């Protein structure tokens, strides 16, 4: 265990970025992000546009009214009785002892399904390790029950060079033409628990790479690294089932995570490939708990996918772009699951990379003159991804699909701290008032 927090590891990265930061500020209109390129159904603006769906549903459950009329001072007398200073004697003589106690939440009766990803040689695969997500009996990091499995981070790899925010791209520029090298760098240098290979070039509107050829990329990645992998399509509902089925076939026995089954494509074909070739399925819906239940039900009942092969992606809308809906959607899903809704008792995954769609994460400066200074975007982007992911970690998310190395490092640091894995010297916080900063 580390004696001190290992943020020093990323300091060097920042040092490198210092120089870049100046460059970034001076280059005008340097917009290098392509939302469509993220593929796999992770379209942040679409997600944000759909975000209000859950809010509309919620509307039906509550009488609406402006919330600004909060009754100030309710419960207190309108005017405090005046105390004559002459009569005021010291009121504080002795401490009145009190014991603090609070019960655990009794309604949390159901455990979230544990889902393994990756087969080691013992499981009939070639992965060097297996990760397990899920298994919680309480909200994440709550004291009611131990959380058996920590959060896991899978770092994205794409099967072609794509447009990325500058702060992200500079970490990958030299490996972007080789998915294998890219995957290796993610594991060896950036400490990825898993790799996600996005086969976006298969999109008929991009390169229309045949499924057979895309499958070779999957093989390349499987050989380059021995961590478990997730396989993402292009997000094209016509092409994805074929692409994922073919990829599943070449990855037979490796227990990959196929991303994604959704209601708008042939989810049965993806489910079938998962069962036949020994993989897990990512069940993806857009910020709608009832749609999530429907898809999970179909995967289980129609397609006979075993419970320990389903992970949900209820959609990540970025901070400032619908995270309020994404957060509450996940929290409601997790709470319903803990209280026994067996159509929702699955671990969750987040396309945290969506945070890079938020303009605060990549834009050179604020488009609005009235805003306080936004500062260098090289520092804004990673923290935007961290806060987006961290919020969802607290809401119940288990697996994070991420991109920026700093974001990965810090998200791991905080989630593993809250998980209880990290020990440090205790800081004497009583001295905070006089601290030299």
């Amino acid at each position: 265990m580390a004696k001190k927090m290992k943020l020093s590891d990323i300091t060097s990265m920042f040092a490198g970025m210092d120089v870049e930061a100046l460059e970034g500020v001076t280059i005008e209109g340097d917009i290098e992000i392509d939302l469509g390129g993220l593929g796999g159904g992770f379209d942040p603006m679409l997600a944000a546009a759909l975000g209000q769906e859950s809010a509309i549903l919620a509307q039906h459950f509550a009488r609406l009214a402006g919330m600004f009329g909060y009754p100030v001072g309710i419960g207190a007398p309108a005017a405090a009785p005046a105390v004559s200073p002459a009569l005021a004697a010291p009121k504080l003589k002795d401490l009145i002892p009190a014991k603090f106690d609070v019960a655990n939440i009794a309604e949390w009766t159901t455990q979230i399904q544990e889902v393994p990803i990756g087969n080691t040689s013992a499981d009939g695969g070639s992965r060097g390790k297996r990760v397990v997500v899920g298994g919680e009996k309480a909200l994440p990091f709550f004291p009611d029950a131990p959380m058996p499995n920590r959060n896991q981070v899978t770092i994205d790899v794409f099967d072609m060079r794509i447009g990325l925010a500058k702060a992200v791209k500079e970490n990958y520029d030299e490996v972007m033409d080789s998915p294998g090298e890219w995957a290796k760098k993610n594991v060896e240098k950036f400490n990825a628990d898993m790799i996600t290979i996005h086969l976006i070039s298969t999109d008929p509107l991009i390169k229309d790479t045949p499924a057979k050829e895309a499958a070779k990329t999957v093989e390349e990645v499987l050989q380059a690294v021995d961590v478990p992998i997730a396989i993402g399509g292009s997000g094209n509902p016509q092409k994805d089932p074929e692409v994922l089925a073919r990829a599943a076939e070449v990855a037979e026995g490796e227990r990959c995570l196929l991303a994604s089954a959704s209601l708008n494509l042939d989810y049965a074909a993806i489910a079938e490939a998962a069962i036949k070739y020994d993989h897990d399925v990512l069940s993806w819906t857009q910020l709608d708990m009832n749609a999530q239940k429907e898809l999970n039900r179909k995967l289980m009942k129609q397609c006979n996918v075993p419970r320990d092969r389903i992970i949900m992606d209820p959609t990540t809308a970025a901070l400032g772009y619908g995270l309020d809906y994404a957060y509450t959607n996940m929290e409601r899903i997790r709470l319903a699951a803990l209280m026994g809704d067996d159509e929702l008792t699955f671990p969750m995954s987040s396309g945290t990379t969506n945070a890079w769609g938020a303009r605060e994460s990549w834009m050179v400066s604020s488009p609005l003159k009235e805003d306080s200074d936004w500062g260098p975007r090289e520092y804004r982007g990673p923290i935007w991804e961290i806060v987006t992911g961290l919020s969802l970690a607290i809401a119940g998310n288990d697996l994070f699909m991420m991109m920026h190395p700093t974001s990965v490092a810090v998200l791991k640091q905080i989630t593993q701290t809250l998980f209880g894995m990290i020990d440090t010297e205790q800081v004497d916080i009583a001295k905070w008032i006089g601290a030299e900063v």
Partner: protein
Amino acid sequence: MKINSPLEAYKYLPQTNCGECGEATCMAFASKLIDRSGKTSDCPPLVKEKKFAKKLAELDRLLAPEIRQVTIGAGEKAVNIGGDDVLYRHKLTFFNKTKMFFDVADNMEEAALVARVKQIAGYKKFYVGRNLLLDGVAIRAVSNDPVKFAAAVKKVAEVGIPMIFCSFNPAVLKAGLEAAKDKNPLLYAANKDNWKEIGELALEYKVPVVVSAFNDLDALKTLAKTFAEAGIKDIVLDPGTYPTGKGLKDTFTNFLKIRRAGIMGDTEIAYPIMALPFTAWMAGIADPVSASYWETVMASVFTIRYGDIMILHSMEPYATMPEVHLAETIYTDPRSPVAVDSKMYKVGNPTADSPVLFTTNFALTYYTVESDLSSNGIDCWLLAVNTDGIGVEAAVAGGQLTADKVKDAFDKAGFDLKTAVNHNTVITPGLAARLQGDLEDKLGASVKVGPMDSGRLPGWMEKNWPPKK
């Protein structure tokens, strides 16, 4: 709140349907009490007539939020913290967004201190039609000298923003209170050593006070209970915020336990909680960017899990911007979409040659589109159609966005496509493509289908604008 149905609140009302509150019936008024859009003082008979006094008192008790609401500061910038009734925002909503106070030290050079306080007070970040702001200044008595502290307080008080006085020394805090009469600062803090003196100060100056016991909830509750019995109502809890390792995990657990106990009815600890992400700067993180990041991470954790007020240090934009956005995110009412006025907006300086677009009045949609256009320097006319605050795709599906509604919106805005512009063309959102034919009929204009995502409007404009004859 001890009750949650209008029927229960109705029992305590006059039940005369007199209408003096502005509602048609007492039952309607009861609903407003339950969802906190109305307060008992809005019912004149209840307040004025002696025979209702007992019912009023009882109703106020039943309606009081589980977590006490505490006010810090005075005047229009005063802030409220606490006041919550639920553990999860979807159950009701979280009230009183987490308040962010940034530190100054009383040994700072005066010019630097004033500059920093002004920076804090002047911070703003535009978001869905308003500005996200910072809330106040925490003055740390680094000098431990009453005279120096009072001088710093005077300087900060001039800016007129809420203050927290930070010292464990009663003499220092007293000097601060004397220097800032009627500013209602929050005193930090009473602990096991100084609680008598600090408690007396809180009583004498009638100011809110923090009780502090690091990682010891029995001691924290003991202090809170002792103060409450002595007549101090405005209490804030500091269970200690450890910046790293098992200490931080313990802190997280403490926050959860305190809030859970409070919501579940333990009134002796049902007070707002203070977090100190500031302690990130004590964790031995050498690089200031990394320390800022860690402070933001701590602030995020405690914005989500029950920190009502916090003291922070880094004013770097990459630290504050996500902090204010997250607080807004967690404290937005999850029950009602935010909407903008339905009308014709000018983006940039549009002329008769400029494109005409429409979108919905759902704030997230509208401001995203507006920002995509303005940030790319596209001068245009942008009509926000009233869809009851619902986004494009859902509104098309649900019938809130139709050709008739769009025509209606143009008419109400007094915008005649045939005279206001010289191209008689409207651009519809890609997600409303199916309205195209209907719109052409209703508007008598040419309708072009724009991209699915407004982020692609600039590229789309290059190819499609001006329209070919």
